[in-house]
């Protein structure tokens, strides 16, 4: 329509000018004659009836023409203000007529203008807008583009919403409004309702169309991501998400916040806020909390060792909540501020998550105690959350069984970890209920290990400050942790008051509600207490006797301070009955010192002086003595002449000791005799029985070209080297000062030595190996050795090599041999004969028996118990079969062999 026609039309309504002509104009409706009316009267229906339809049609045509939406509204730069037909009076009138006037739809078949417009908008949206949106959304949204996609969506929707709503609000609503306000005076609320209702309904319908065209899950996922991402950025949490590195460039958080607010408000405006957005937001915040917990903000504080929990609470309160409020505000959610109870809930929730995250690594924290104090404190806070204790117990037990209680872990390591567990859990929960629970499997496992008691006791007896730093090297059996515990002062043991009845105890607290029935608050709760109570008392004391015995015999400290202290400690912990044996042992070694000095001081020293003329003068200084029915003993050295210090041990109280018997050098025998005589004089009825295998000695060897001192030798080593002294009958050219010629070194073979010393061959060989290692002897032919009289003339590579090799072997052997107290293995070997006769007796008298039965009978019948397993027993039976005493009858049944 050109301008001219418009002008014309504004004066003369010429329907034909418009593009459509309503039918009634073309074909006037003459109406129908009502019943009883005269036919054909031109006035018949002048009142309106049939004319209403015509009028309405006309008005409809004008209004819809006016309101219809532009066809290609969205170009690249969609202009909202597309050229709209100016609103003419005719249109105004038509709208008025259709919306509030007589033309208002009255019957169901008549379409209302509002409905028509809504439909028009829908149609328009489906035709022109939806394809563009679908293009954006029909694929998975790459997280990198989530922001852009949302922005774009929001922009488009905002535009079209404006496009749709603008005419409606401009042209339709005023009519409705006017009608609403003019018709009746109503209370404000209802008025609002009436006037707002059509607009609100329109908007809702359009927004429903919008929402419908977006894939709901994809949309909420994207929105959720965007919210999460913005959370991360606002709090500067850099977490890898789905392989995507969050942008490392710190954006200006103010600007970012604005962008977020804009987006959210935009979404809310086009109806994409609301419940779905809230749900997406909830997801995002949930994830954000997780991310925060694993982020660098809440890393365990290894340096200042503080708990991170206050930090976390603060963040929830001052970081998380404001963000939630901001977003809720943007989304126009109903309660748009956070309630205090919600804050509390969130803090608890976050604490629970933090706790779980920490508990997952609890084992690592425990083994890094006490650097990990911060983490432990976090977990301590976490324990206040309900169910936390169960979770902690089960999770930690799992970690322990997976990472600790397996054959690959050394007992020392397990013990160390156990100590850390004790310390860490003591911090975690001073009442010890948790500790009791988590430690149970560890304790049970430790009990099963053979070497536990030995390691504990020997570690307790070890000096902490060790000169070389090798004692506690990795792989060493000794536990530094245990040794250092020993250094701590003995905790004050409260007197045996019944604490429950101590009315004056102002610090009394009830037992923890989750304690097990046998829970008992330990009075002393240091680490040693836990270690010492691993076993039944009796078992522990037996083990203690063995180890203490071994230790006392080797101990260098003349005062035995550590040993006394240990014994006192154990007495405090375990009560002092049953520990007599240990006390006697300790007293024995202390008494021995006195007896030694009294014997040596009583003028016998003359006897101890032996001629110095001999070429190699052994000065053995340690010897283990046995005192008749009830004691053994031994000595340390004096520089001059052989000197004997005895340890007098009450054999009844000591554990079984090594009893290898052999001849000690004659000089020593002499001293032993005189010592014995003196001892008997002092101690009356008691008799000494010498235990030559125990003890230690030092010796000075004089060679042609050198003199060497050796200390801490075993008696058999000394005996063997002494046997290389020339015998009176032997041809040996004594030099001026008693040295032999280099060419005629003295030679002995193993056989000779073994008979001469009545010593077991393995022991002889071990001693020979030791001396070869020291470059004192050399092997001339297999089993034959001679003294290296002169190093200078004979030193050659072969000797050195042999010495090096022998030294290594000797060391290994010495370690195996040096235990003074018998091992299980030794005991088994020793008692084998008794066991044999048991088996023979059993099989002779009760007939053939299966091995299980034999085992059971042995356990039952052997006095003192049969502490050995099936393997040992089967070995023994096999041996007896080989000897022809027993026959195997198949199926592990054994019988006696008939002669």
């Amino acid at each position: 329509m050109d301008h001219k026609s418009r002008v014309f039309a504004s004066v003369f309504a010429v329907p034909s000018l418009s593009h459509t002509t309503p039918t009634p104009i073309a074909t006037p409706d003459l109406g129908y004659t009502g019943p009883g009316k005269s036919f054909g009267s031109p006035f018949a229906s002048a009142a309106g009836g049939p004319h209403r339809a015509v009028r309405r049609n006309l008005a409809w045509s004008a209004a819809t023409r006016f309101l219809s939406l532009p066809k290609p509204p969205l170009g690249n730069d969609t202009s909202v203000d597309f050229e709209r037909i100016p609103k003419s009076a005719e249109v105004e009138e038509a709208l008025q007529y259709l919306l509030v006037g007589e033309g208002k739809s009255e019957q169901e078949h008549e379409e209302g203008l509002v409905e028509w417009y809504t439909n028009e908008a829908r149609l328009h949206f489906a035709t022109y807008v939806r394809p563009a949106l679908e293009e954006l959304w029909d694929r998975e949204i790459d997280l990198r583009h989530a922001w852009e996609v949302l922005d774009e969506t929001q922009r488009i929707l905002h535009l079209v919403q404006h496009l749709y709503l603008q005419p409606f609000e401009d042209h339709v609503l005023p009519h409705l409004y006017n009608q609403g306000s003019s018709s009746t005076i109503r209370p404000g609320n209802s008025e609002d309702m009436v006037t707002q209702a059509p607009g609100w309904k329109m908007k809702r319908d359009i927004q429903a169309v919008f929402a419908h065209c977006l894939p709901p899950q994809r949309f909420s996922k994207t929105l959720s991501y965007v919210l999460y991402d913005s959370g991360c950025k606002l709090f500067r949490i850099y977490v890898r998400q789905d392989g995507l590195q969050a942008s490392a460039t710190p954006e200006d958080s103010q600007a970012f916040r604005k962008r977020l607010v804009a987006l959210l408000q935009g979404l809310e405006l086009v109806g994409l806020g609301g419940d779905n957005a809230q749900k997406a937001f909830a997801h995002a915040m949930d994830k954000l909390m997780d991310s925060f917990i694993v982020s660098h903000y809440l890393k365990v504080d290894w340096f200042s060792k503080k708990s991170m929990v206050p930090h976390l609470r603060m963040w929830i309160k001052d970081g998380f909540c404001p963000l939630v409020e901001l977003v809720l505000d943007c989304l126009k959610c109903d309660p748009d501020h956070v309630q205090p109870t919600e804050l509390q809930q969130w803090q608890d929730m976050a604490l629970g998550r933090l706790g779980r995250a920490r508990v997952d690594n609890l084992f690592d924290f425990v083994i890094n105690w006490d650097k990990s104090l911060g983490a432990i404190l976090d977990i301590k806070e976490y324990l206040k959350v309900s169910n936390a204790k169960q979770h902690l117990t089960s999770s930690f037990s799992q970690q322990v069984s997976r990472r600790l209680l397996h054959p690959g872990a050394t007992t020392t390591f397990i013990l160390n970890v156990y100590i850390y567990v004790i310390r860490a859990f003591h911090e975690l929960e001073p009442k010890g209920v948790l500790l009791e629970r988590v430690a149970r499997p560890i304790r049970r496992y430790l009990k099963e290990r053979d070497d536990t008691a030995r390691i504990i006791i020997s570690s307790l007896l070890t000096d902490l400050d060790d000169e070389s730093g090798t004692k506690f090297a990795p792989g060493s059996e000794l536990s530094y942790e245990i040794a250092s515990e020993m250094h701590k002062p003995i905790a004050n043991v409260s007197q045996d008051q019944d604490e429950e009845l101590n009315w004056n105890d102002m610090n009394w607290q009830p037992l923890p509600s989750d304690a097990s029935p046998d829970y008992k608050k330990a009075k002393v709760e240091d680490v040693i207490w836990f270690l010492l109570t691993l076993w039944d008392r009796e078992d522990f004391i037996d083990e203690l006797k063995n180890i203490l015995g071994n230790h006392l015999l080797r101990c260098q400290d003349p005062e035995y301070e550590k040993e006394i202290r240990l014994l006192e400690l154990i007495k405090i912990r375990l009560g002092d009955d049953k520990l007599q044996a240990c006390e006697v042992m300790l007293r024995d070694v202390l008494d021995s010192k006195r007896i030694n000095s009294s014997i040596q001081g009583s003028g016998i020293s003359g006897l101890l002086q032996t001629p110095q003329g001999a070429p190699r003068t052994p000065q053995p200084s340690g010897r283990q003595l046995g005192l008749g029915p009830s004691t053994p003993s031994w000595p340390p050295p004096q520089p001059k002449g052989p000197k004997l210090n005895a340890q007098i041990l009450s054999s009844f109280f000591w554990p079984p000791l090594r009893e290898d018997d052999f001849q000690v050098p004659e000089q020593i025998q002499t001293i032993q005799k005189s010592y014995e005589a003196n001892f008997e004089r002092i101690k009356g009825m008691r008799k000494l029985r010498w235990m030559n295998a125990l003890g230690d000695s030092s010796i000075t060897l004089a060679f042609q070209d050198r003199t060497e001192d050796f200390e801490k030798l075993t008696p058999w080593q000394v005996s063997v080297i002494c046997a290389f002294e020339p015998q009176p009958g032997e041809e040996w050219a004594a030099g001026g000062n008693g040295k032999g010629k280099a060419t005629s070194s003295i030679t002995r073979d193993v056989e000779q030595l073994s008979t001469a010393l009545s010593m077991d061959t393995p022991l002889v060989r071990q001693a020979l190996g030791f001396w070869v290692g020291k470059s004192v002897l050399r092997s001339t032919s297999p089993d034959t050795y001679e003294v290296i009289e002169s190093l200078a003339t004979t030193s050659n590579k072969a000797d050195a090599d042999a010495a090096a090799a022998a030294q290594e072997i000797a060391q290994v052997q010495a370690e195996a041999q040096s235990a003074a107290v018998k091992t299980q293995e030794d005991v088994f070997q020793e008692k084998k004969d008794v066991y044999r006769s048991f088996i023979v007796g059993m099989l002779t008298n009760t007939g053939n028996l299966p091995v299980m039965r034999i085992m059971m009978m042995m356990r039952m019948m052997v006095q003192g118990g049969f502490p050995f397993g099936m393997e040992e027993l089967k070995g023994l039976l096999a041996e007896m079969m080989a000897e022809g005493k027993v026959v195997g009858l198949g199926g592990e049944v054994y019988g006696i062999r008939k002669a």
Partner: protein
Amino acid sequence: MALTSGHNAPNGSRGQTVAQRLQKELMDLMTKPTAGITAFPDDENMTRWTATIEGPADTPYANLTFKLAMRFGSTYPYEAPSVVFKTPIYHPNVDFSGRICLDILKDKWSALVGIEGLLVSLQSLLGEPNNSSPLNGQAAELWDNDMEAFKRHVLARHKTSEELDLDA
């Protein structure tokens, strides 16, 4: 310890001491075995034992082994155990059901005898029967008058433990 269990000894703890005493005797027997004599409890119940003795050389019983069943009462060692031969034996002082007539099983018993002493006595009884109070008159008579016939009777009556098992 001995004091307490001796004084107020209800049956339970008395039984305990019998078992302990028997266990000790068993241990002694095993650590210092006597040639030709073994004894061992039948089962967990320490009060029933089986003993095996070998016939002394230079007697009609040489190379034969005899099993005995021993029952220890709750008063052991103050009363003698009851001992019977399980292996059939032809002997002046043993009847056909294996009962033995021996002074130390009756009035001469003393707690000092012990299981080992008892078995040693029984072993020597084989070589030196007390013919003045025989349970088996024929055997006593043959022992005094016809050693060859006696030996035949001994061998005829003896059964090895395997044969005994078969009979049972």
